[in-house]
């Protein structure tokens, strides 16, 4: 297997998702074909790994740092020539300069990010965390974090990818409620009456209100919190981030739950008429599909009758 552009693309896919069997088999075969191939793969993998480390250098201003040390050195005429008192004056200057640089570095400004209809945007925080805002959403965040990492989701929906920092837990505040994490990815959707929280990776602590009992959610779990009734409903997080990925994944999902998730995603009420019947579970992945295309597949799988009323769709199984 030669080192063609296509084989590099497959290696690229593998690096993005090492769990995918197809990619893994290709890469293993590629590597074992020749020592040249093995060397090629190792070199690509090395670039892949080391380039992440380069992100640290993004925050350094090389020119400013050189300026800073020139200023500090300018205070010294010739070292050790004029005695100890010159040394003390210089050390004092270094301390003051150091403190000034530090205080410049710790001044905090709060920014607001708002998205309009049909607009998706993202924010990168000072710690490297990324927040992707769905349409009609609003987020308040500081340009720097001190000892706490805190941001506020004012309205709408967002997908959070939070950088791991066990020393400084990350808090998302939604009016009364809050979510506390160490380093995870999760989705939050706020409506007038509910907060939907779905955890994709990691662990999340949800507190509904001050002194309320905290719920712990792990990867794959989700909950809906009713702000009025002050009640929780737990469910799976399978499709919490579908608005972002445009993908609906169903693994052994009961038909009733499928209907609920379709309702959430497409915004049209889809009701299962005979919900009490035992239906076989659905295993499917829908990528960039319209509601009609999905209903067609459900029709094939369950042999259902589709009844379209003006504001809802009813599904009737035989």
């Amino acid at each position, binding site marked *: 297997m030669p080192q063609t*552009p296509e084989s*590099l*693309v497959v*290696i*690229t*896919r593998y690096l*993005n*998702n090492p769990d995918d069997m197809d990619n893994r088999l290709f890469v293993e075969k590629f590597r074992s074909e020749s020592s040249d191939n093995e060397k090629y793969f190792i*070199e*690509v993998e090395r*670039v*892949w790994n*080391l*380039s*992440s*480390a*380069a*992100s*640290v*250098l*993004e*925050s*350094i201003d*090389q020119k400013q*740092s*050189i300026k*800073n*040390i*020139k200023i*500090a*050195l*300018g205070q*010294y*005429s*010739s*070292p*050790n020539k004029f005695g100890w008192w010159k*040394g003390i004056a*210089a*050390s004092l200057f*270094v301390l003051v300069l*150091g403190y000034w*640089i*530090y205080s410049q*570095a710790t001044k905090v400004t709060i920014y607001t990010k708002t998205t309009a209809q049909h607009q*998706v945007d*993202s924010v*990168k925080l000072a710690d*490297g965390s*990324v927040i*992707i805002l769905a349409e009609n959403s609003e987020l308040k965040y500081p340009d720097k974090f001190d000892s706490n990492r805190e941001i506020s989701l004012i309205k709408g929906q967002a*997908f959070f*990818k939070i950088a791991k*920092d066990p*020393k400084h837990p990350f808090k998302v505040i939604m009016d009364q409620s809050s979510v506390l994490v160490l380093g995870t990815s999760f989705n939050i959707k706020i409506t007038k009456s509910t907060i939907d929280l779905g955890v994709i990776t990691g662990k999340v602590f949800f507190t509904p209100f001050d002194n309320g009992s905290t719920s712990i959610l792990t990867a794959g779990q989700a909950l809906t919190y009713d702000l009025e009734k002050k009640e929780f409903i737990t469910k799976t997080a399978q499709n919490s981030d579908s608005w*972002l*990925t*445009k*993908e609906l994944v169903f693994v052994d999902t009961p038909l009733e739950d499928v209907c609920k998730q379709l309702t959430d995603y497409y915004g049209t009420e889809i009701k299962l008429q005979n919900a009490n019947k035992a239906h076989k579970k659905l295993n499917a992945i829908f990528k960039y599909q319209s509601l009609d295309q999905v209903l067609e597949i459900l029709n094939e799988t369950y042999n259902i009758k589709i009844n379209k009323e003006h504001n809802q769709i009813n599904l009737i199984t035989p």
Partner: protein
Amino acid sequence: MDIKTGRDLFELINKGHVQAFTNFYNQFFQKLVLAADKYVKDIHVAEEIVQDVFLKIWEAPENLEKIVSLKSYLYRSVINAGINHVNRQKSIDEHHKKIAINFTDEYLIELDEENELIVLLHHEIEKLPLQCKKVFKLNRFEHLKYKEIAALLLISERTVENHIANALKTLKKAILEQKGVKKSSSGYNLLLSLYLF
């Protein structure tokens, strides 16, 4: 003048050559910040630490005279300063104090080589074409998956994969060229010495 040993730097400081000292600082700054950052996990603190170490050296260069490997000395100073900072922050929690380890010269040489590659990669990433750079940074710096990048930038996942593959190809070439430059310069010296004798 090539500054390799402690003595080289000591003589430079005694003569008061600020510009040469600053150039030397410039050479090592990014690599040492990478090393300090591993411990303090705060880029601004890491910067301060490296600057501090260099200023202290300028103030009191006597320790440099006996040092053979200047590079190792700098890395050790910066890493120990980083560890001390972490320990000071955690003064209450005895249990989590890190211990200042004595790193071997071999380990520090390898660390320096790796940091040199990281600095080079950072420089080359900036030179990538605009969209390719955007996609690559979203993936390698902000750890978004291809699916998420495609959704964010409204492009296909295949386009994302092509950008990443392109970036990897370009960066890999840049690294090999760098290694080639280093190897060929030593090869040239060997060739020259053969010619002379």
